[in-house]
């Protein structure tokens, strides 16, 4: 179970989103950076010996 401050943060952010039309710009930075970071890490894994197979195992594709 998450603590009280975590729940408060969910509520605080949801209210911010509701009241600020510019929320998307802030969310975009956060969401895109997560994917770009993961993609860069995947490239590093692919450069390892047997990288493609390793990545497939990580992604449960084998």
């Amino acid at each position, binding site marked *: 179970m998450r603590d009280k401050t975590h729940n408060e943060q969910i509520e605080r952010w*949801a209210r911010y989103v509701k009241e600020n039309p510019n929320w*998307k710009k802030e*969310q975009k930075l956060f969401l*895109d950076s997560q*994917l770009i970071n*993961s*993609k860069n890490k*995947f490239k590093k894994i692919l450069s390892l010996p047997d990288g493609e197979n390793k990545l497939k195992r990580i992604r449960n594709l084998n």
Partner: protein
Amino acid sequence: MKRGINERTILDKFAEDFCEVIEKHAKYIICSGFVAISHGRSRGTEDIDILIEKINFEKFKKLHEDLVKNNFECMQSKNSKIIFKEYLENGNSVRYTREKEYLPEMELKFAKDEIDSEQIKSRMKLPFTGLDLYFPRIEESIAFKEEYLKSQKDLEDARHLRIIYEDTLDENYIEKFKEKIRKVKLK
């Protein structure tokens, strides 16, 4: 309000491009986590869930070929017959990505019961998201997260959606839909 190109996230663009192809072949809804994320929920995800109406193999073959033509690939197989027979027809999902990319993923599955079909039938675009995508009615997404999925993440998603739509939510509809979930999905 459709969002400007520069405001759309990588996930938004991926979902809109994918669904533009799907819509030519079958009715769909985007469900689960991306519903909350497209309403501003501050959590990451690598995959988007899409539920499509059940279609026969011939139709699916055309859909799959159109996805491939538009530079998407299925991670489970390149063969539409295998995807259809071994996965979709058995109630399993398959995952599509942009060609030669491992993420984001679109997790695609067929509607398998009356609730799924009903959600697709009453699908709608949600102006708050600014996205050209079809979603289930928001009360249905909340009911699913609170009554069926129920993980910490899903309950937090529902809480976020409840705040965004607090002035317009039909609580009676949510309760009735939860009842339906209990009868059909949790029996």
